[in-house]
């Protein structure tokens, strides 16, 4: 099975990453009853013989000895990573997978990208190569980071560049948390736009996430549970926001629930590559089907259902509701409404006891209310994975390449321009070696071009007015 190597960069990235590893372990534990190191586990974990210490050899078959995540954790402050290493996941990582510093990046993209990038380049490349060596087939890198800060944004996109240089054939998937309007980091627009240029040019696929959306979803779940409107009890560990197994409905840290959603997104994205099903969907297929033109690689995601009721028999009505919800505005992980914008492509990855007829019925049902680009009127990519997420009987991940990402980018550009016009805080960036005014103008130009491409598509609905005439054959 192909190996996936996630990189968590920065505070946000590492907090999400932590939830991801926790949920991944629980998911595999639920399926893997015999404790055998199997193909599914090997996609995210190595099996190390630690009897002779941490540097033991990898074991490729047989019983699980010690699972180590195929990951790199990078942060320029120690707090978050230290917490992970003191917590229940401490044995999943070894010191060779960590790159930390002490002073942080001061919420400055340039510090993360130029200073730390330069400083840690060798270190990162070396650890990258080591991780790759342990994979017999490296298919994909995942970067998890936020756009608004300094480390995740700056150093994270530096790592993205490095990955392209060192491993040009391995797919680069990036999960990026975009800042909201009320973000408490004043320079987050600068950091985000500078990072966007890197994503435009070096990522294969980007899954943008907005905290506002995660927050709204978390609230929605709390309301639903507390309102008592639900007929049956909600399966506690089925909440898309919960740490499976935990009985709490209110999390101690506000971000835990939100991070769980993103962690679940990543788990579901890779589920069909790890577990069997009647129609497998691998990561390279996602990139192939959802990216019709290289720069248009931003995918809006939604996860449903948010929870599963305790009923064992799921009537198809409820299954159908799951599909409907995937297209509704309030289930998207960014502030976007795909139903009222233009689809270039759409993917549905279903897990659990769902069959092809359920998929077909729902596609037929929902298609008329969706707008697809003229050259992809029936453009659906579908996958069926037999193994549901822990606590659920079924789930759906929808990925859309849709022009509804445009408002997010336009707002970002507006916030950037507000600061840039006044040259506010620019000196913090320009004083960094390697940073010039042109970095800013090029970055915003790149973003403008991207917005323009989406505008074009919206204006023309993506195609010529008339169907192109077919080749004529002399009879």
């Amino acid at each position, binding site marked *: *099975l*192909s190996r996936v190597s996630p990189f968590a960069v920065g505070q946000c990235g590492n907090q999400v990453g932590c939830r991801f590893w926790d949920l991944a372990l629980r998911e595999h534990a639920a399926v893997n009853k015999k404790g055998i190191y199997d*193909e599914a586990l090997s996609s995210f974990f190595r099996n190390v013989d630690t009897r002779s210490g941490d540097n033991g050899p990898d074991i490729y078959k047989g019983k699980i000895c010690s699972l180590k995540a195929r990951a790199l954790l990078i942060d320029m402050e120690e707090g978050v990573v230290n917490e992970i290493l003191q917590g229940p996941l401490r044995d999943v990582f070894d010191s060779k997978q960590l790159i930390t510093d002490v002073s942080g990046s001061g919420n400055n993209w340039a510090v993360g990208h130029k200073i730390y990038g330069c400083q840690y380049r060798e270190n990162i490349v070396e650890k990258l190569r080591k991780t790759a060596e342990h994979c*017999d*087939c490296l*298919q994909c890198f995942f970067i998890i980071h936020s756009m608004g800060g300094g480390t995740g944004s700056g150093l994270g996109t530096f790592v993205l560049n490095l990955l392209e240089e060192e491993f040009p054939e391995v797919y680069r998937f990036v999960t990026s948390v975009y800042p909201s309007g009320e973000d408490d980091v004043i320079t987050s627009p600068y950091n985000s736009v500078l990072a966007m240029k890197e994503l435009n040019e070096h990522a294969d696929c980007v899954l943008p996430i907005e905290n506002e959306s995660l927050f709204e979803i978390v609230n929605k779940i709390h309301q639903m549970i507390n309102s008592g409107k639900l007929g049956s009890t909600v399966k506690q560990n089925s909440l898309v926001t919960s740490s499976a197994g935990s009985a709490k409905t209110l999390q101690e840290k506000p971000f835990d629930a939100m991070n769980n959603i993103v962690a679940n997104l990543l788990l579901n994205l890779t589920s069909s590559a790890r577990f*069997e099903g*009647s*129609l*497998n969907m*691998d990561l*390279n*297929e996602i*990139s*192939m*089907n*959802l*990216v*019709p*033109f*290289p720069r248009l690689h931003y995918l809006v995601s939604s996860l449903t259902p948010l929870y599963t009721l305790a009923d064992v028999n799921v009537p*198809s009505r409820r299954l159908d509701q799951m599909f409907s919800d995937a297209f509704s505005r309030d289930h998207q992980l960014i502030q976007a409404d795909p139903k009222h914008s233009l689809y*270039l*492509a759409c*993917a549905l990855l279903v897990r659990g006891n769902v*069959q*092809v*007829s*359920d998929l*077909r019925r729902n*596609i*037929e049902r929902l*298609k008329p209310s969706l707008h697809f680009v*003229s*050259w*992809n*009127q*029936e*453009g*659906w*990519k*579908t996958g*069926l994975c037999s193994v549901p997420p822990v606590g659920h009987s079924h789930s759906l991940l929808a990925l859309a390449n849709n022009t509804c990402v445009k408002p997010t980018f336009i707002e970002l550009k507006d916030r950037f321009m507000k600061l840039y016009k006044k040259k506010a805080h620019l000196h913090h960036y320009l004083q960094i070696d390697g940073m010039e005014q042109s970095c800013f103008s090029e970055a915003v130009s790149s973003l403008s071009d991207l917005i323009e491409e989406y505008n074009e598509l919206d204006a023309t609905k*993506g*195609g*010529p007015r008339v*169907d*192109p005439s*077919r*080749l*004529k*054959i002399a*009879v």
Partner: protein
Amino acid sequence: MSIVTVQLGQCGNQIGHEVFSALCSDIRGTHGLCSKKENESYQDSCKERFFCEEESGVPVARAVLIDMEPKVISQTLSMAARSGHWKYNSHSHFCQKQGSGNNWANGYSVHGPRHKEAIMNLVQKEAEKCDRLGGFFTIMSMAGGTGSGLGAFVTQCLRDAFPTSFILNHVIWPYGTGEVIVQNYNSVLTLSHLYHSSDALLVHENDVIHKICAQLMNIKQISFRDVNQVIAHQLGSVFQPTHTAGGGSGYSRNPLGDLLEPLVPHPEFRMLGLRNIPQMPESSLAYSTFSWPGLIKHLRQILIANAHMEEGIDWQVRPPDPGSSIPSTNKPLHFNTSIANLVILRGKDVHSVDLGSFQDPSLYTSWLNPQDAFNAWKTPRAFNKYEKSAALVSNSQFLLKPLDSIVGKAWNMFASKAYLHQYTKFGIQEEDFLDCFTTLEQVISSYTNL
């Protein structure tokens, strides 16, 4: 004579497993409705064709399993072994780790050349186990990356390595509303390439089989397994042993040759459709009776009206008046013109069946004598618990509309240049696409002007 089956990609392997299961379960059944001697002859013939014997006594399928990711092959091998009644050879498979990414170019230009030697070695080994090699049967979908791209490459290799053997490609056409967004590109690339190396393409369309599952088999929540089992039943009804017309008293010893030679008289026309009647849930079989005249009447109308099953047939469609030479543009609308047809009858009283209606010259183009255009195989041995069953393999306009639709959608996408960068990075250029479109437009034109 033996047939070596090559299962390609997830679809090919999932269907292949159901086919061998169906064949095996049919020969083990006690519903043959014929003499013991006839039954034993049938069993022996099937075994020789599709299985080889091992010391353990468990029949081993004559198959090579190929996929670019390991999960499906692993499942397929273990499901077969668990059945206890047949299995695959534990060495006859080849897989990789990373898949083809639904990218035809990746399957054809990268995986193909890279793994050619290993794959052809496996095929050679299987071929050598056959006392007499009757040819190759490949199973693949044309929507994805492995079955389609690697499948096209392997077919070419088979043709090069076995220039005088028959090659029949069983190709699955995906649901029209999409399983894969680039499925129409992959389909155009596959079909045009297969046309150059294969003897014939035997097609099943997911949409059609899905309808059969819903309307005839009454399955509520249809899974791919259900679809695959219907397909396997239909294939079994063609490939299980029969007596061919001039075959004397024994079962046909050249199944692929006997199938392909009469059905593909002209290299421009290689698309074969398959119909089977009756089809119903197993639980209903005990309560149903059929008459041959009724079955034959329905099957003929299915052919003429291009229906997919015995429900919803348009009985208004009639062949053109005999005797008048009508240019194709004036033929009655919706009438399905045939080049050649094969009807296979299995079960009770087969020898009494009158198939004269299929020899009506108005069903066919004028190139062949109706006696040559139509063939019938019969066997008294019933198939898969159906007391009477009839299959139709047809080289006609069955697939014209679906083919035209796929090419149309692919062309529409091609004109906007969407997704082309995904193919060019693996070496398939725009000119290659254009060549493929040209090939298929030619095929469409040929079938339209029958």
